[in-house]
């Protein structure tokens, strides 16, 4: 018994430490610190506390809310999670998958006027990969930037 412990002390202690760390990761409070973005409802719940602080906001592009001016690269849309809506203003060409209903994450600050000014715009794609339905063509907004766009 004593011999056993002497020989295997370090591996066993090491394993115990590893298991403890793993348990802490799983059941500890880490999940609150590793959130990549807030949902619109979470951001709205912060109220004035959120104003003018750098934050990431994620949700879906509210269908019908997109206003895109391809001459000035001015993009306005609403991010929704069903429980709350936040209006977003962004400049620059959006990623090619940007469209109604797509998941997006924006980085920026929300102003006192409750408009979110985004400095960057990322797409959060779902885990679904499907062939398009017969005759379906994705609406690719960035194509409006090209003169010879196929209509």
């Amino acid at each position, binding site marked *: 018994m004593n011999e056993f412990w002497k020989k*295997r002390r*370090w*591996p066993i202690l*090491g*394993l115990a430490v*590893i298991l403890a*760390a*793993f348990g802490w*990761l*799983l059941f500890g409070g880490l*999940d609150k610190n*590793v*959130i*990549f*973005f807030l949902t619109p409802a979470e951001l709205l719940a912060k109220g004035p506390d959120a104003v003018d602080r750098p934050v990431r906001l*994620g949700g879906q592009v509210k269908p019908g809310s997109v206003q895109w001016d391809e001459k000035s690269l001015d993009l306005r849309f609403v991010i929704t999670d069903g429980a709350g809506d936040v209006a977003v203003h962004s400049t620059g060409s*959006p*990623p*090619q*998958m940007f469209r109604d209903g*797509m998941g997006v*994450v924006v980085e920026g600050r929300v102003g006192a006027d409750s408009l979110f000014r985004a400095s*960057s*715009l*990322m*797409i*959060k*794609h*779902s*885990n*679904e*990969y*499907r*062939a*398009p*339905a017969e005759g*379906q063509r*994705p609406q690719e907004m960035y194509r409006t930037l090209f003169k010879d766009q196929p209509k």
Partner: protein
Amino acid sequence: MHSIAHADPIATPSARWAWFGIFALLFLVFAQVTAVMISVPDRDMGHLQKIMYVHVPAAWTTFLAFFVVAICSLRVLFRGGERDDLLAASAAEVGAVFNALTLALGMMWGRPTWGVWWTWDARLTSTLVLLLIFIGYLSLRAFVDDPERRATWSAAVGVLGAINVPIVYMSVRWWRTLHQVQSAPSTLDPAYTLGLRLNAFAFLFVLIFLIRRRYEAAALLRAAEHADDARALGGR
């Protein structure tokens, strides 16, 4: 004691393994061509979906390689053993290459689809940490001269590093990330699933072949180390 001619008979290069390597390479070509041919452009990302056939298998083989490191390292810690040590080192090295490949391919996929090469979400960050740990593992092995100490220390790091594998895998479910959760056959069109499965096997074969070749090389190096030791002790 180890004899000077200690060339692990199991680790001797053989024609059978060379044929397996040729098979693995041909199967990889077949799987890639088939997957690209049978998959129509995805309704959201078009042809970019095809990066799935290299990025996802690379990630899976990374996990598998580090799982081998974990098993071999535990065996080293609890029973000792030269072969387990060498196999762990070989799997770690090949795994690190696939880990880097996963990150590089993921970045190439992320730029056109997400809009960014990189972002610090839990999935991307933990995958990078995994790579750094195993680069550390390989550096540690290079720095420690005494084979027995090298085996024990690197086994400890190997187990610690492999703990990160389930964390990387589950990160998209445990935490809110930019990276989407795992796809499943229910979220993929059948053609995409078939293409992915074919390439998963292709990458598996390549992984086995590379770990095997690395293990043969490691065993030869170890035999040379033993020969040096014997000479230093006055043998011939």
